[in-house]
């Protein structure tokens, strides 16, 4: 399994924010994006997830599909990734368990058929130390609790690629450790992860890419 980004050029409001970014990521390894504010980390992640169409260049993911009978050719990244952005994708009127149950059902893939939805939700709550809050509406949670709930989504359905935009925001150190462990476990299971962050994170094995702020271009 391999993620290949070739000569990506990304634009925001007619301004280039990434010029000619290329990288390859192998299954089982991570990539850490760093760079000052406004250097294009979020933009790159959104482009990888397929929300933003690159001005030129391409992103492909190769060798997926053994599990669900695809031909093993390249496929859309959006279909095989988890995306956790600045916003959590959590409904404040639903309880923690309801939120996760919805995502578990909505996102589940053939690879998940081994475990029941309830089981996966329970496990994810457990990992992120949220079981005590399972039946509390998300609107009543603190910033960090809500963030953890957003991250628990990563574990309720299997996706080979994780795209995480500043995932440790609002997390206390204990929770940040939990997250790093979850990422490392995902990598050691052969998955891939791309993480934008301002803090050093102990993700292994991982390469780093440091973005710089782009100079003006006509």
């Amino acid at each position, binding site marked *: 399994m391999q993620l290949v980004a070739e000569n990506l050029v990304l634009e925001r409001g007619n301004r280039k924010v990434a010029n000619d970014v290329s990288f390859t990521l192998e299954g089982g390894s991570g990539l850490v994006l760093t760079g000052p504010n406004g250097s294009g980390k979020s933009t790159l992640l959104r482009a990888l997830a397929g*929300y*933003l169409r690159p001005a030129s260049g391409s992103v492909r993911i190769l060798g997926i599909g053994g599990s669900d009978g695809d031909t093993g050719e390249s496929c859309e990244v959006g279909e095989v990734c988890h995306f956790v952005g600045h916003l959590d*994708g959590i*409904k404040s009127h*639903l309880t923690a368990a*309801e939120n996760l149950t919805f995502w578990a059902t909505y*996102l589940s893939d053939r690879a998940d058929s081994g475990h029941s939805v309830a089981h996966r939700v329970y496990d994810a709550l457990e990992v992120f130390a949220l079981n005590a809050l399972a039946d509390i509406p998300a609107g009543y949670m603190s910033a960090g609790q809500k963030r953890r709930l957003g991250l628990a989504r990563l574990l309720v359905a299997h996706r080979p690629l994780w795209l995480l935009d500043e995932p440790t925001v609002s997390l206390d150190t204990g929770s940040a450790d939990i997250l790093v462990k979850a990422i490392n476990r995902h990598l050691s299971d052969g998955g891939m992860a791309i993480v934008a962050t301002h803090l050093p994170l102990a993700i292994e094995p991982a390469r780093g890419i440091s973005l710089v702020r782009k100079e003006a271009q006509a």
Partner: protein
Amino acid sequence: MSAFLALLKRDLMLSVRQGGALGTALGFYMLVVTLLPLGLGQDLNLLSRIAPGILWIALLLAALLSLGRVFSSDHEDGTLDVLATGRMPLEMVVGAKALAHWISTGIPLALTAPVLGLMLNLDIAVYPLLMATMLVGTPAVSFIGAVGAALTLRSYRGGLLIALLVLPLYVPTLIFGMAAVNGLLGVSGTSAAMLILAALSLTSVVLCPFAAAAALRVQMQ
């Protein structure tokens, strides 16, 4: 398919949780109909004459205005981003949400119309026909409305702008709905109008998700 059902279920659940979507749309519907006699005077003949039209228009408004935040609330909390990952195409996401809107708002509104008809002194014989046209016509209302909601995803004017964009598109539905109820065209005319209404609904169910999904995609950058 299970993703589609999960989304449908969640939207229905939210529409119950979030302060009774249903109750609000119904309440609005009733209030508009109640205000009318205050504004128009209580001439019962006049009221019963304009009743079907008023009921249809108030239904359009109530349905439309409850559509306002169908997509934008999901956009603002990041849910839409996640809904767009995975194998279910955005067209189906739109379909599920519009369907949820029809079930949670369109159908109850149509079923309430007779009660309000009573208040407007509407001839009881007209009730079944009125409800039938509304049930057949409201899918078009929900699905066309979804296009408007998608187009205004990021606009801060929400509700009213949708109305401006979408009300013109409701005109055919309104015209044929009224034609069917008024029976001006005789029995065969009525059933023809019903057929056209059904065709309008079917067409919008099929085509609108594509337009709405396209609108969502360009705004998710």
